[in-house]
């Protein structure tokens, strides 16, 4: 399975944000996108996820087979928001996303164990702290299987220990022949991944 992006370009409100971004990732590859504020990291991830239209270039997933006919079907997207309802319990939230996304991977209790929050399953999501919310949101990536992870500032709000834990989770995903594209301005602690730097708006 290969994720190929050729000459990607994107615009927001009619203004070009970036152009000519190319990369190629095969199974087990990670890509860390860095760059200053406003350089289009989040935009790039949303373009890859197909949530924003392409202004130029092409992106495709090769060799996904029957299971993953296109890129949208094959990816988990972790955005700035956690996509969880504060009125529902953690378990209800995760169970919903597991059933909605299909392809169950881990049990909910197991996924919560992996992010270090085994006790919170029956608590309303709204009661958790910012870092805990983020970790529950990361657990969502684990309850359904998707080969491609698109992570937008995944470690925002996490403490050092949780960051390390999350780095281990990402490494495990790469070991399982997954693909990760992460946008961040904090080093993620991933070994042997490709890097892409967007320069963006500061050029005149």
């Amino acid at each position, binding site marked *: 399975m290969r994720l190929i992006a050729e000459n990607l370009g994107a615009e927001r409100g009619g*203004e070009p944000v970036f152009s000519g971004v190319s990369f190629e990732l095969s199974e087990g590859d990670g890509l860390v996108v860095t760059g200053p504020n406003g350089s289009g990291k989040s935009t790039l991830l949303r373009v890859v996820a197909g949530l924003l239209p392409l202004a130029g270039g092409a992106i495709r997933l090769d060799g996904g087979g029957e299971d993953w006919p296109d890129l949208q079907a094959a990816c988990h997207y972790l955005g700035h928001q956690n996509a969880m309802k504060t009125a529902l319990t953690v378990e209800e939230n995760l169970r919903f996303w597991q059933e909605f996304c299909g392809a169950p991977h881990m049990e909910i209790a197991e996924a919560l164990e992996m992010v270090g929050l085994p006790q919170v399953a029956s608590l309303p999501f709204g009661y958790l702290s910012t870092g805990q919310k983020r970790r529950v949101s990361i657990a969502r990536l684990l309850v359904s299987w998707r080969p491609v992870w698109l992570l937008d500032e995944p470690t925002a709000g996490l403490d050092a220990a949780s960051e390390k834990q999350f780095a281990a989770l990402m490494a495990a995903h790469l070991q399982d022949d997954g693909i990760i594209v992460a946008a961040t301005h904090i080093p993620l602690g991933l070994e042997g991944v490709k890097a892409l730097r967007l320069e963006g708006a500061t050029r005149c």
Partner: protein
Amino acid sequence: MSETAAARPARWSDLANPTRFIALADRLVPWLAALSALVLALGLWLAFSAPEDYQQGITVRIMYIHVPFAWLAMICYSIMAVSSLGTLVWRHPLADVSVKAAAPIGAVFTLLSLITGSIWGKPMWGTWWVWDARLTSVFVLFLMYLGLIALTRALDDPGKAAKAAAVVTLVGFVNIPIIKFSVDWWNTLHQPASVIRLDGPTIHPTMLWPLLTCAIGFTLMFVTLHLMAMRTEIWRRRVAAMRRMAARAADAKETGGREAGR
């Protein structure tokens, strides 16, 4: 826009370029304005020299402007629907400009047709307003225009506003026949059709010609106004883009200065 495009099919692709469109509009607008003024003057003169209706008297002259207004209210919505298709299906860059520019013009024509209609209705039916099927449908059309105007103005990003407006316009276009049909049903259920007959006597040629001239004149005026509104809208977008670029440039200068100072 559809009219100009239909007149010069070869220019359809040229029109996609806003600069060329503005150039074309600059050339066309004075001529169209003059022509529509001429035709309108002729039409109104004909209208006032036409014989009075033996039943309706002088009030029948309102018809010569009322009918074209009502006609244009519908034409304008059709143009907006076609332009919406242009936005969603063919992604024609000027289609959304056309929708945004047409909505206020359509609303004004619809309002004018309602006003002239009720001025005509007062002496004829003895009341300013009746919940007649046709009047009600036009009133609903007016409400839809206002809703669309509110929508196109409420969203900041012109691209997003255009697509949202296009979806609503098309849903409305599908709905208009249903509304018309349902209002007809509602009306016949509540009051027999004998009370009001908008048709009046079958039109006599002495009235038909002034009416047609007026209709053509108002249509030309509509095309002129639409072209002008589209041109204004394109300019407005350019100004917005330039302002954004200016903001961006200021930001770059600032960070450049900071980096140099470091």
